């Protein structure tokens, strides 16, 4: 049992798979689970000085800019100027403020913040489901392949049996220190055609761990009525109402059981705290930012969402997921990343300027506020796009200058929380088709997220069938710290 004291310091409840196995072994030695847990509680306080921390527990919060639709890695993060013309595309590489790192000309402002971020150019996996979007998105945010994929490649709608997304596990293991929303998702759900919000919720962990969904456009006025205390209902009156409601409900126990199955009472409890504290209300109030700051992030849905993410993190939210505001629909005039039909014009004129202003401003702003050291920032899609133009990899048809889905090798940006800036991790081949060095599975990215928050990625939780499940079957990417 001495091995327990060597577990690196933990910030949370739960126990890892390895510990779980040890518990099984310990039982044979006549040591009960409560005893193990109490030993473990003692172990919690001891950090093993011989182990480098590697970002362990460095993050207080995580901002995931989830670029749903699948942005073209070659045209943004991983330019290949020496590749044949049907691969390299129309854009030229530009230098960045870090020697030896180039970005595509579509990202001029990010180029000036490159010293703060790490590009993982070897993200690689093979999703289930003929790489349709939903299966890939589910993989990205939950770390699991979906249980069931229809022959069309499509998934079922969200279900309570789904694997929880990272936000839910984080809300569970590292609830906020303040009366604040643990996790927020904005400004719209993840979506592919009929399937809306798959992977976007707490799944088997229970609805109470769902992120708060702010599906409004922060570039317009956000409606904050629900969070703003009304003049005729001051806190003392709200508290009186609450206790009256609880008395009335207690008189109807059968119906209160229904409320339990919907986690209604937990929601009400959280809602009272949020309304009474007014903390969330202020965080959502973008009018408290200067015009200059708002302009910098960009006066568009994605830019203002990124700014809102920073405000939420400042107020104590652990996990903010900003979903790219447009989804695949085949119309080259919307800013959807799913550029089958036409790639270069929309990227240059519509999509990339928005991505560039939001990501670069977020990195600069967090840095200037001294928040980057404790905030992990991720910008990544569910896949990249095919290096060769005009070919079909997903069964979709593609225009001659269109690019299809490509999960085998693409790029994600990661920054903050101890991640060394100004570096490229992993390497893609001459055409950006396959990783040459250090391939990174999306599971490893999630494991890194948990790791920086001080949550062991191998922590076991029980699913709806009481089966033990790891948070994610991946390993933190040690080389980026």
């Amino acid at each position, binding site marked *: 049992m001495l091995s327990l004291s060597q577990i690196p310091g933990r910030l949370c409840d739960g126990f890892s798979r390895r510990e779980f196995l040890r518990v099984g072994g310990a039982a044979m030695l006549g040591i009960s689970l409560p005893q193990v847990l109490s030993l473990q509680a003692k172990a919690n306080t001891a950090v093993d000085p011989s182990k480098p921390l590697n970002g362990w527990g460095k993050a207080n919060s995580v901002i995931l800019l989830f670029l749903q639709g699948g942005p073209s890695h070659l045209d943004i993060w991983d330019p290949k100027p020496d590749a044949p013309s049907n691969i390299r595309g129309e854009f030229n590489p530009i230098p960045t403020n870090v020697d030896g790192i180039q970005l595509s000309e579509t990202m001029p402002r990010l180029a000036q913040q490159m010293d703060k971020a790490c590009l993982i150019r070897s993200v690689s996996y093979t999703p289930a489901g003929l790489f349709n979007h939903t299966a890939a998105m589910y993989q990205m945010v939950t770390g699991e392949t979906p249980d069931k994929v229809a022959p069309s490649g499509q998934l079922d709608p969200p279900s309570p049996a789904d694997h929880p997304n990272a936000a839910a596990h984080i809300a569970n293991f590292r609830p906020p220190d303040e009366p604040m929303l643990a996790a927020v998702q904005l400004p719209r759900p993840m979506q592919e055609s009929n399937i809306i919000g798959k992977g976007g919720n707490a799944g088997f962990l229970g609805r109470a761990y769902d992120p708060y*969904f702010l599906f409004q456009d922060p570039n317009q006025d956000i409606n904050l009525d629900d969070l703003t205390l009304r003049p005729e209902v001051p806190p003392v009156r709200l508290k009186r109402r609450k206790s009256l409601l609880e*008395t009335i409900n207690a008189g109807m126990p*059968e119906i209160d059981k229904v409320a339990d199955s919907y986690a209604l009472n937990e929601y009400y409890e959280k*809602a009272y705290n949020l*309304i009474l504290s007014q903390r969330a209300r202020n965080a959502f109030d973008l009018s408290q930012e200067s015009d200059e700051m708002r302009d910098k992030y960009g006066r568009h849905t994605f830019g203002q969402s990124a700014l809102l993410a920073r405000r939420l993190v400042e107020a104590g939210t652990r996990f903010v997921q900003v979903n790219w505001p447009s989804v695949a629909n085949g119309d080259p005039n919307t800013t959807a990343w799913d550029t089958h039909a036409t790639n270069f014009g929309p990227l240059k004129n519509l999509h990339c300027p928005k991505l560039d202003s939001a990501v670069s401003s977020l990195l600069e702003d967090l840095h200037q506020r001294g928040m980057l050291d404790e905030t992990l920032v991720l910008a990544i899609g569910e896949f990249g796009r095919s290096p060769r133009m005009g070919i079909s990899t997903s069964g979709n048809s593609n225009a001659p200058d269109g690019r299809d889905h490509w999960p085998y090798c693409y790029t994600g940006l990661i920054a903050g929380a101890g991640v060394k800036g100004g570096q490229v991790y992993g390497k893609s081949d001459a055409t950006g088709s396959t990783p040459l060095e250090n391939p990174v599975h999306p599971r490893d990215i999630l494991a890194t997220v948990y790791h920086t928050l001080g949550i062991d990625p191998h922590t076991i939780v029980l699913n709806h069938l009481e089966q033990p499940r790891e948070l994610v079957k991946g390993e933190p990417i040690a080389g980026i710290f």
Partner: protein
Amino acid sequence: MGRGIIEPVDDIRTSNPPTNPELLDALTKDFVESGFNLKHIMRTIAHSRTYQQSIKTNKWNKADKINFSHAVARRLTAEQLLDAIGVATGSRPRFEAVPKNFRAVQLPDSKVKDDGFLKLFGRPERETSCECERTTEVSLAHAMNLINGPTVADALIDPEGRIAKLVKTGSDDRTVVEELYLATLSRLPQENEYAVAIEHLANAESKEEGTQDLLWALINSPAFLFNR
């Protein structure tokens, strides 16, 4: 009843069989024989013992979700809930560009605007043709809206609403409590419920405030929010 004999109801194929084929056949036959009379089949279903079961479960049917062995509570849909709040408070919601006193369930489509309540509570945007677009989940945002949002709060203080009228007529406390229970839960209060409510009214700053609080609490109780 919250679930089709084939579920989802619009997904009819060999690999998605009905849970009770005999029942489906019997209902089909009855429907055809009635000359495709919708009122007839609704009456048949609503009068059935199965439809009228309680949400109470016992140890044998607790786990059942597909055989209609007990009722399953469902949150009211967006339009139902908005209309129910309108009836309970006596303050009808107002929509753009439709006649006054239009109910939410009568709205022709999702383009008709309200104060955002319908969207929040899952009225389909009609982006797809799938019934699955409608949601009846419960979330934190819903709780916040019902506790503190403008829909319920404005309806409670509506000068034309039920409470304003109750206070104006000077009804005694017992009558007030009775009317609010009938307006929200469609039943009379039990004696202990009278006692709790009357005590609250007695301790409130004013009769009006106390009545508003009581109606607020009833609207926020799962007994009101769920179809059961």
